[in-house]
């Protein structure tokens, strides 16, 4: 096993380190307070208070009411719940608006709805521009009378590009269409105030903001028609059956508190580190390019293509130095095609296969950035020497 102390971890859009404070908050509920919050006795019932407190913390980070917070098992469950709920609430509406660059949790669900529900659905999958941004006019044109739900991510996991959720949600609301956003990458990195937005459903995931894995949230705006996805007990006011994952819920509450505290740092120090890394790499390595809009972007994410070399080979060389990142190349995904996000943006094949995503967190240091800036150029140069497409004078 690699020593965690030695990892230069820049893969925070994949998952994050559990904050020490979060772990500490969780431990009593794993070790001592194992009661079931639904029980009548105090030993179980007292756990319910911890859940209520966590619910409040989550609601505070999002600018929501605690009753609008439904705990789920992960971001994927939240996404599925929102979309299935809308389709069941409006059985006559069989049109969904989404984008070509959604996370598989939304993308693959929407693409397989016909099989899953036994109904025919019409999907409008919006194209993105070469910088990964959406065209609002095309979005407006896609909204139809029979649109049941719009599901568009707040920020893209691969490029960090942020979509204009406020405007898009407003346009949906004006037409009486439910609006869902997968905000798994955005929560904790950009300020969100749901009171001021026309968003009906919002998904988030604990492990992307220094909480534990296996806990998610679906925000359901008060008054939004809702059909549960997991049917069972009366937990979560009947909106999600299943005994509460108490320790993780408490951990997520703590993580949301921390996220609110660190939001400013995320957008200043972390952003500065990201910019230093990005500018340093683009300057030191010829034939490299940024994927995604330069400014409409999460403060922690940088997706850079190194032309004429392949992503998995780059990652495994980085791994020799304990540098952790990810790639949109085909070989890393187990599929044979490069990332659907980069392809939707029209990133040329020379570049798509050689894309590396660096995603930082508040735990990264300037020394780590310097280390990566020192190691990357020789890794790329070494692989290019081996590449039949690399011309020395290019």
């Amino acid at each position, binding site marked *: 096993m690699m020593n965690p102390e030695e990892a230069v971890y820049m893969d925070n859009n994949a998952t994050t380190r559990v904050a020490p404070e979060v772990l500490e908050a969780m431990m009593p509920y794993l070790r001592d307070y194992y009661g079931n919050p639904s029980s009548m006795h105090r030993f179980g019932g007292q756990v319910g208070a911890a859940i209520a407190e966590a619910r409040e913390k989550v609601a505070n980070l999002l600018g929501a009411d605690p009753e609008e917070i439904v705990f789920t098992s992960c971001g994927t469950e939240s996404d599925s719940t929102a979309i299935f709920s809308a389709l069941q609430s409006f059985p006559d509406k069989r049109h969904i608006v989404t984008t070509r660059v959604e996370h598989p949790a939304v993308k693959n669900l929407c693409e397989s709805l016909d099989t899953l529900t036994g109904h025919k659905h019409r999907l409008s999958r919006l194209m993105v521009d070469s910088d990964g941004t959406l065209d609002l006019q095309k979005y407006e044109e896609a909204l139809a009378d029979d649109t049941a739900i719009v599901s568009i991510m707040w920020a893209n996991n691969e490029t960090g590009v942020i979509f204009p959720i406020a405007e898009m949600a407003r346009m949906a609301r004006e037409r009486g269409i439910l609006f869902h956003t997968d905000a798994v990458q955005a929560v904790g990195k950009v300020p969100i105030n749901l009171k001021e937005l026309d968003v009906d459903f919002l998904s988030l995931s604990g492990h992307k903001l220094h909480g534990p894995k296996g806990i998610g949230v679906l925000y359901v705006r008060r008054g939004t028609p809702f059909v549960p996805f997991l049917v069972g007990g009366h937990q979560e006011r009947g909106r999600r059956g299943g005994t509460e994952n108490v320790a993780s819920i408490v951990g997520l509450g703590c993580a949301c508190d921390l996220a609110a505290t660190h939001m400013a740092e995320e957008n200043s120090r972390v952003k500065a580190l990201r910019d230093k890394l990005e500018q340093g790499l683009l300057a030191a390595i010829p034939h490299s390019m940024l994927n995604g809009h330069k400014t409409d972007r999460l403060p922690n994410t940088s997706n850079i293509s190194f032309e004429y070399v392949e992503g*998995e080979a780059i990652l495994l060389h980085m791994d020799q130095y304990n540098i952790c990142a990810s790639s949109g190349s085909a070989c890393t995904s187990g599929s044979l095609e490069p990332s659907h996000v980069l392809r939707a943006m029209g990133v040329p094949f020379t570049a798509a296969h050689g894309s590396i995503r660096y995603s930082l967190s508040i735990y990264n240091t300037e020394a780590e950035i310097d280390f990566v800036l020192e190691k990357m150029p020789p890794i790329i140069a070494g692989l290019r020497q081996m*590449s039949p497409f690399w011309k020395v004078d290019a």
Partner: protein
Amino acid sequence: MWEYTNKVQQHFLHPKNVGEIEKPDGIGEVGSLACGDALKLTFKLDDKGVIADAKFKTFGCASAIASSSVLTEMIIGMTLEEAAKVTNEDIADRLGGLPKEKMHCSVMGREALESAIANYRGLKLPMAEGEIVCECFGVTDLEIIRAIKESNLRSVEEITNFTKAGGGCGKCIDRLREILMATVHQGVDIKKIAEKPKRMTTLQKIKKIEEALEREIRPGLRKDGGDIELVDVDGDFVMVSLRGSCTSCAKSQTTLKEYVEKKLRELVLDSLIVEESK
């Protein structure tokens, strides 16, 4: 994270024979940037016809680089005839195995070697022949059938692992299943699929003749200490050169007409005429 053997990691991190031989005797280039991997193999022969040096340039993942590196190590010191017998399984075995999803990397190595040998022999093999089945990766029915037979493939998933066919949009999956069923269950139907194009280009003929020589004809000749090389194909005329004990055999002309020509007519095209190149 892939589970790569130590041998794969070693060849990936410290590849052998990277580069390009100047004035090589044979060059083989396969793959493309779009497909995500590509290999350029060059070799040089000594005066005894033994591969004295081989070098590679590879764009691709760790297993593609390792497969290329180990391939060059394997073929240096081999005669062309020996090298022609190297299979993708040999390459994978030499690496201590590859993850099944990465077997196509070893196939790429074998294809580059084949292409380099054909290049040396003056036979220009096109990258893809037969009927294209997988449009995303440009894989033909012939390549798929060959992989099914050589590596004993039994599912569409395995075909994708070995040839990449079906790994893109997935539109050809039904067709892959058909080919698999036909190839596995009915030996007779294989030929029907493989030989559908009645009007073959010279390049297609060459590849099919090479296959027939390798699979059906050489084993018979070798039993008697002989061998055969394809020299050229001009229309229906197939020029070959007999090697080993065949050269001094009084019956060599009979062998050519009664055995080689008959077999090639049966397996490739019934209008072929076999002649010995002097």
